[in-house]
């Protein structure tokens, strides 16, 4: 039995050593060589989730790059921002989506739920710091462990292919060519009683604060922005709480609110996303605002650091 235990221990040790090499070597090389470079001409960038991804067309807005990605919580946006800003010194201004669903508890799941973690963690794991790892591990250890192996596999392949270019994976404008609002409203159950109390996602708000602080520490201008959503969108029900979070935790930052709008249903893909037509309207308006000095002469536009802009046809 001693011989068995000895040989098994040696085998286990070799296995662990090989696994450690498989994990650590690709991660450390990727960490050094990862390229998050964007177009040289872009000095304004925007981050967020699908609302932003489908709304700002960077072919219409000059010197601008939309880097939003569907289903991305601030935890992963923070990692992306750190790499993007450090490798693109020409960036001067950062817009970050700040909308109703991003304060909601559902963002916890977007941070450490299996679906989102297995998608985003392989991309950003090599760049996480200890406290980031701790957050994922403390809140969903089993999923984190299994996702680590997904991340190890994907990064091993990346390493073997010497593919260190992240430009295709960090988001970008997506035009939706559907208009399903009328159909959704026809089938929507209007009798659903919505909960009056909403719980917030502390981790998401914590990382929004980290994003803002990081951008400021790098000398960048930061704005929060809310993209148009249809009035019937269920996640708008927490508006009171949303404004309370805005006023209590993020009152020190300028907020551009496009949510007050008169856009007809045909400008939406569904209740929360603009379609291509809506994106064109919004992008043109946004371009006008930028050219009108939104960034350079903020006092012209903002009242109490909030700027409401009505979008219509």
């Amino acid at each position: 039995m001693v011989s068995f235990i000895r040989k098994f221990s040696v085998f286990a040790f070799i296995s662990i050593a090989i696994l450690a090499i498989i994990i650590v070597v690709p991660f450390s090389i990727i960490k050094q060589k990862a390229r998050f470079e964007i177009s040289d001409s872009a000095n304004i960038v925007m981050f967020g989730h699908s609302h932003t991804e489908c709304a700002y067309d960077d072919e219409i807005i000059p010197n601008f790059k939309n880097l939003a990605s569907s289903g991305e919580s601030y935890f992963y946006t923070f990692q992306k921002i750190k790499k993007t800003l450090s490798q693109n010194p020409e960036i001067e201004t950062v817009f970050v989506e700040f909308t109703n669903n991003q304060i909601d508890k559902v963002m916890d799941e977007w941070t450490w739920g299996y679906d989102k973690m297995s998608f985003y963690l392989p991309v950003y794991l090599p760049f996480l710091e200890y406290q980031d790892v701790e957050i994922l591990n403390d809140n969903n250890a089993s999923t984190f462990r299994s996702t680590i192996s997904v991340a190890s596999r994907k990064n091993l392949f990346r390493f073997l292919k010497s593919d260190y270019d992240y430009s295709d994976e960090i988001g970008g404008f997506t035009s939706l060519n559907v208009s399903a609002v009328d159909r959704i409203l026809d089938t929507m159950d209007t009798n659903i009683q919505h909960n009056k109390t909403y719980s917030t996602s502390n981790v998401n708000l914590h990382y929004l604060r980290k994003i803002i602080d990081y951008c400021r520490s790098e000398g960048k201008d930061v704005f929060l922005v809310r993209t148009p959503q249809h009035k019937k969108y269920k996640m708008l029900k927490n508006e009171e709480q949303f404004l309370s979070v805005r006023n209590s935790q993020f009152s020190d930052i300028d907020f551009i609110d496009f949510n007050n709008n008169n856009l007809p249903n045909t400008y939406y893909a569904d209740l929360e996303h603009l379609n291509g037509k809506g994106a064109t309207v919004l992008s043109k308006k946004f371009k006008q605002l930028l050219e009108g000095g939104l960034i350079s002469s903020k006092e012209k536009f903002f009242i109490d650091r909030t700027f409401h802009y009505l979008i219509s046809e």
Partner: protein
Amino acid sequence: MFLWISIFTNLGFLGFFKYFNFFLENLQSAYTFFGSELNISSLHIILPVGISFYTFQTLSYTIDIYKGKLEPTKDIIAFSAFVSFFPQLVAGPIERATSLLPQFFQKRQFDYNQAVNGMRQILWGFFKKIVIADNCAMFANQFFNNSSEFSGSSLFLGAVFFTFQIYCDFSGYSDIAIGTSRLFGFDLKQNFAFPYFSRDIAEFWRRWHISLSTWFRDYLYIPLGGSRGGKWMKIRNTFIIFIVSGFWHGANWTFIVWGALNAIYFLPLLITKRNRTHLGTVAENSVLPSFKEFINMAFTFLLSVIAWVFFRAKNVEHAISYLKTIFSNSLFSIPEFENKRYALEIIVLVIFMLIIEWLGRRDQYGIEKLALRCNRKVRLSIYLVLVCLIYLYLGKEQEFIYFQF
């Protein structure tokens, strides 16, 4: 009389926990069909894990004593250990008292070769479960849960993924259970003998879930008359054993149809007396199968893929609509689904698993003797590759399918 008390008690527990609501729902449907109502509410019963397995194990004990094959034990600890032996408690293999019980009375000494063999089998079991079954499950779930959105070719691929999922999930568990038992000095029965290399359905059923098939053969099929008697008697017995086998898996019509379908597959072989044609291992003395053997294996595999659709579907209607889509013109389109690149990686791993199993098809499990034919360094490398693959392809944790039975 004691025999019948034992049988009724065991089956009574099984019937209550597993089948009560099923019978009630069907009785209510029958009443509704005839225009009246039966107002009995169903029970919220938590099904004890592995009840089907240990019920059959205790039944075999009673019946074997009645038949005089075994002396009743007076050692309550040995009996309890036999019923609740942890490696195979929840999902088999279903052990016979004549084989397992005496092992509890033997003095066990550590056997190096047996322990290494056990560890090797555990490693192979983990590979099949974690790398193949859990990843195939991800795709099978995608297709079966949203079957109306996919083309025939995609659904066919989904059924193939499930075919490998269920095999690697269940045989992987059996490998882990048998390997763990070996570490403790116990020998359990081989439960799977590479069933997807079968040349006909009769051979498939001699190689799939062997401990259950032989249980039904010995305690149900033979007492019913087996293959003795006339043609109709054989047909009746075949249907009974397959339908009961399906019903054993769960209280759902899908399992019953799955069992009946396998009986239909089996009948032509039985009637033409070709059900015992393939008793040996395929390509016994050659590396590759002959063309005829290959075609037979592929055909048998396809039949099992179709049958597994009933096993996996939510209900019989779902299974039929799933199969209708498969057998439509869209069967010849290119499959469209999410995560194609990863699916391709999993298909490559399935082929790797099949090659290993093919090379080890004369043994108890895939890598039993395969690694031993190589020198020490190559052997170690094979094990390390398996460990790395297990780590790298560790996906979303999926419970063993047979835990629900």
